[in-house]
């Protein structure tokens, strides 16, 4: 994936110069290890700042919502599926976009690496399949596949599903991935155990809403937690309010979530909130045979009525 950078700059430069787009949205090198910053390029100097490596985890579809200009945007598999969802939901027009597809091998989970390091990581060096983390008097090399973001390790859509340009030939998709092991392990619990499990999961939440705001799907002008008339959810850290926020947010993403992992990646206190969305994703697959964001012509199952929709839950 490291070789992508040159190609990305080449494509971005060309698109800007030809006037095909007014800006190209990608990443520039971050100021701390294992972080890159979303960045827009409008000039040749900006283009030279664009980079690509295993730390481009933020979902760039988030930056397209309601924009009016013509935009070139880098898109991994998950980003491209969110772009499809954006197009279906009229948050951007297909004609406005030049989608620069980036075949993805998975993004690295900085929390996983940090936990395996003995001290603060001050530098990370990436090779094709490995990643080396260095700190004060410390250096350790990991196989990338062992330190991927959890969602990336389960991903079966690494190649962009929609694109106008590609920075490299498609990568081989993962086969035979067990995507719902976590959902099954929760299903095996009693209701009390589950309640406790989610209580522990959400205990550190500070309601900063990084998960919500990192999510390309969360674009409502006023989120239900911010409504004051009526006020649906209390504003304190009361556990029932925190939980109400998290599971309602998950419901709002049902049939729309691409499991891009932006929510977990953004969380400052390390909550794995995909534990909520994963269940809904599995239900959509089981009940409707639905996988989100593969086709801009098909609306999601909770958005349409079909006579064959399952209705066993209705008494």
């Amino acid at each position: 994936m490291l070789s992508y950078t040159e190609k990305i700059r080449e494509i971005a430069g060309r698109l800007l110069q030809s006037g095909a787009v007014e800006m190209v949205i990608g990443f520039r090198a971050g100021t701390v290890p294992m972080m890159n910053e979303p960045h827009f390029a409008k000039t040749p100097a900006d283009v030279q700042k664009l980079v690509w490596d295993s730390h481009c985890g933020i979902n760039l579809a988030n930056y397209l919502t309601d924009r009016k200009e013509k935009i070139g945007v880098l898109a991994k598999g998950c980003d491209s599926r969110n772009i499809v969802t954006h197009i279906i939901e009229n948050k951007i027009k297909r004609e406005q976009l030049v989608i620069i597809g980036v075949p993805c091998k998975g993004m690295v989970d900085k929390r996983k690496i940090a936990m395996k390091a003995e001290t603060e990581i001050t530098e990370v060096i990436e090779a094709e399949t490995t990643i080396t983390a260095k700190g004060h008097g410390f250096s350790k090399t990991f196989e990338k596949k062992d330190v991927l973001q959890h969602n990336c390790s389960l991903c079966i859509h690494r190649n962009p599903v929609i694109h106008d340009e590609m920075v490299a030939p498609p990568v081989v998709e993962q086969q035979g991935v067990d995507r719902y092991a976590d959902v099954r392990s929760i299903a095996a619990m009693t209701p009390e155990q589950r309640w406790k499990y989610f209580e522990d999961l959400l205990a550190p939440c500070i309601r900063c809403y990084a998960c919500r705001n990192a999510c390309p799907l969360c674009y409502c002008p006023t989120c239900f937690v911010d409504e004051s008339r009526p006020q649906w959810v209390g504003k304190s850290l009361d556990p029932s309010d925190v939980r109400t926020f998290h599971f309602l947010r998950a419901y709002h993403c049902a049939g729309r979530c691409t499991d891009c992992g932006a929510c977990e990646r953004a969380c400052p206190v390390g909550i794995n909130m995909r534990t909520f969305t994963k269940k809904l994703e599995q239900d959509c697959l089981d009940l409707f045979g639905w996988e989100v964001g593969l086709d801009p012509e098909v609306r999601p199952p909770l958005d349409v009525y079909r006579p064959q929709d399952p209705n066993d839950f209705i008494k």
Partner: protein
Amino acid sequence: MKMITINKSEWADGLQKAAQAYRLFGPVKEKEFHSFKRLQDGVLPDLACLNTRLSPKHLIYPQSEVMFDYTLDESRADHHILKEAARDDSPQAVVGIRPCDAKAFVLVRMNFDTPEYQDPYWIRAYEATTLVGLGCAAPCSSCFCTTAGCGPYHEEGLDVLLADAGNHYLAKVLTEKGAKFVAAAGWKTAAEPQAADRTIAALKQASESKITSFVQTDNLRSTETTDLHNAAFWEEVSFSCINCGTCTFSCPTCWCFDIQDENRGKAGVRMKNWDSCMYPLFTLHGTGHNPRGTKLHRVRQRFMHKLKYFVDKYDRGIHCVGCGRCVRLCPVNIDIRRVCNMMNNFAASGAACAIE
């Protein structure tokens, strides 16, 4: 100023004694991260931690705090009248707080303790708190305290400064509160002041030399507020922001809050909750007009407040202690060090333009 030697063998015992007079708090590891928690039943603060993920500001300024309670039951004589809620202002001590986080309270105090008004909640909690700080021997790569008006052995705001000198701690007792705490812990071996000072100075120097990141702030004061406000770079700075509250909630110096009533049946409370200038709702008028309606406005407000308005209002430096939390936690890597230097350089380039 007294200097005390605390042999590490006396440490646990002393804290146990202090726990009889104080509610003790300190850094404790939970799952992956450290946070400041109540030290129950002889649990020791984990002083090896590189600083906690979130700041300890909640110990004085909880994220959610009940101010008043009331009844809406009209059969009661005092219906609809607010009454002060019960609270615990018994002495508490924060053991192992870093100098940056302690200095942050000094800055926040300027907001809550003013000549005209005093916030009784913050002030009572602050007055009940003794800050027993640990000099920071291993600053992180994102720490920039030395150029943010602070430092790894900075004393301002602390009641006791501890320095780890191998088999013992040197405790520099800085205030009356600190003296009381040391007495309650029963630590009384006086250290030879000059030798102790030399040891601390050496540790301080060693630590400061490990700090590799800096901000420049010298031009901020002299720059015109409106020029800085209108600078072109804000679009580029704010582009990646997702408008979450991570930076402000993790920041030890951010103090903004909201006031909310919450009812349950006929009873209810009025409370203060942390709020964030990153949220659109923060400044939204009832009419729908929002003076800071875009993320550019809001990102600019955060940095301008910390690095310009505060500088102008109090003339006490920037409203930042260089703890680096926002740098480490921002989901999209917006870096205050970079922005601070841009603002400072803008000042310099602005001056250059004026000469031309």
